[in-house]
């Protein structure tokens, strides 16, 4: 038995900028602010940082970040692909590097001006030949359209309704209404607003889609022993996993035998295999919510319910505080900020420190997931 990830590392610091439709400053500046804040939160000097991990879609690279914040010699750096599918993997890569002695202080970050910047799908020059040649000419242009197709099929197969998707949107909005940092802090959502909202890609309406946000976040990963000397209670990386299923096609996953079992299922098998805990032990979940249908799919994938039961799981306030599985307690991508899921990681840390604005009493375990519907990743955090 070689090195194990289980509780070997911990998240010792978190940092973030404000979230807004438009923030002043460059993505690089925002990244540096979030990283410096995370290091300060941990009580670790920037000169001790020797590892970096981020997304391939991140525009600020390690050289720029390292020299700006005053990092020392860096011995591990990695980037993870597939947009929001990479969020948890950034922490997983740092945890693996630190657990195997390749580095000692790792910083993961995401900085993005998606609120004031361009929508990626509007760029008609960057048409990836595979698989866009099979989808974009037919007007399947945006992620909302691509996920909308899976959502329609899911609703057809399992009797899921728009009310189920509303349950997801409402839980996230209710938590955002408790979180002063959330973009939707002062904007309550009602069922009537949801049911009469404009369509984006029918069957998905405006409130089924995440926000467009300027903002940056970061976290600091260190060995468990080191974390116990830091400023806050350590939040241990109990288990971590990535998932790229056999014959998966990315967000246009229409071309395998079973398009409704996506990367969550693969990541979940590996995540639980490496854990002493199971889905029944999870106190609170931060599940990637670029679109509401990703929640029922992920609930099934991570084993909180059976196949086809994810929509019904959301009934009866199950996702609210006091429900079966409190969800996205900072408001998530739907109502706090959409920064490729990194705010789900930091919210998981806040829950396990006991400092969330929508604290689940005595929360000791938190599942954090990255984007379902693309090659994904997940973390099981514990206090």
């Amino acid at each position, binding site marked *: 038995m070689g090195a194990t990830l289980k509780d070997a590392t911990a998240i010792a610091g978190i940092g973030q900028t404000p979230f807004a439709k438009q923030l002043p400053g460059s993505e690089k500046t925002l990244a540096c602010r979030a990283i410096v804040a995370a290091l300060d939160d941990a009580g670790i000097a920037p000169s001790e940082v020797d590892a970096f991990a981020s997304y391939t879609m991140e525009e600020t690279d390690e050289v720029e970040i390292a020299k700006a914040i005053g990092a020392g010699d860096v011995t591990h750096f990695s980037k993870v692909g597939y947009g929001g599918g990479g969020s948890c993997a950034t922490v997983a890569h740092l945890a693996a590097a630190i657990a195997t002695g390749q580095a000692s202080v790792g910083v993961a970050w995401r900085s993005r001006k998606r609120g004031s910047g361009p929508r990626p799908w509007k760029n008609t020059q960057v048409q990836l030949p595979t698989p866009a040649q099979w989808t974009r*000419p037919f007007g399947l242009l945006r992620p909302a359209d691509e996920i909308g*197709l899976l959502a329609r099929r899911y609703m057809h197969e399992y009797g899921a309704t728009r009310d189920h998707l509303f349950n997801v949107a409402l839980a996230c909005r209710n938590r955002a209404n408790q979180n002063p940092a959330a973009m939707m802090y002062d904007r309550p959502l009602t069922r009537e607003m949801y049911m009469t909202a404009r369509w984006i890609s029918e069957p998905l309406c405006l409130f089924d889609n995440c926000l467009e946000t300027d903002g940056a976040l970061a976290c600091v990963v260190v060995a468990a022993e080191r974390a116990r000397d830091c400023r806050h209670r350590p939040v241990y990386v109990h288990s971590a996993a990535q998932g790229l299923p056999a014959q998966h096609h990315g967000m246009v996953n229409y071309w395998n035998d079973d398009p409704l079992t996506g990367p969550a299922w693969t990541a979940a098998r590996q995540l639980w295999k490496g854990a002493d805990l199971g889905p029944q032990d999870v106190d609170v979940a931060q599940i990637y919510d670029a679109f509401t249908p990703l929640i029922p799919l992920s609930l099934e994938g991570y084993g909180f319910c059976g196949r086809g039961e994810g929509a019904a799981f959301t009934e009866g306030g199950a996702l609210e505080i006091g429900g079966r599985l409190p969800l996205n307690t900072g408001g998530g991508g739907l109502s706090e900020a959409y920064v490729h899921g990194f705010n789900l990681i930091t919210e998981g840390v806040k829950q396990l420190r006991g400092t969330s604005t929508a604290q689940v009493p005595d929360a000791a375990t938190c599942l954090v997931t990255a984007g379902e519907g693309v090659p994904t990743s997940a973390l099981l955090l514990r206090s």
Partner: protein
Amino acid sequence: MSSGESLRASVREVMSPSVTPPTDNRPDPAADLLLPVPDDDGAPFWDYAARGELRVQSCADCDELRFPPRPCCPHCQSFAARWQKMSGRGRIWSYVLPHPPLLPAYAARPGYNAVVVELAEAPRIRLVGNLVAAADAPLNSVDPARLRIGAPVKAAFHTLPGGVTVPRWLLERP
């Protein structure tokens, strides 16, 4: 398969109705639907489509169909492939109705649909496309209320202003 084949889209499985509907072939800048940008593996699909044929890549050794096309058979790892002709019949597997914000050419066709069709001979082979009233009819020529999962459809071929022919889908029972 030569990519130098004529792009003449003379083969139409369905003739246009006698009253010519508005067409998507007009030279209008707002009419510029995106063209497929084929890769090496996908190029034969578009070449066959230009001849009015719907063909899917299959392994020349183990005969398994695969889509999207790729260099190597995931079942037996053979690099030998051929392109198998499909009947063009299938069923709607799912669909969406995209609304703005959209690229201008698509926003100019409100109520258009994007469908996934599973092929009759190979239900696990699914193609994204548009359900239209006739091969050359506008993208939004079918009343969205007519769309439903499971509806039988058949392929037709339409040549875009850029000279590329794409498969489209017509209801078997309009």
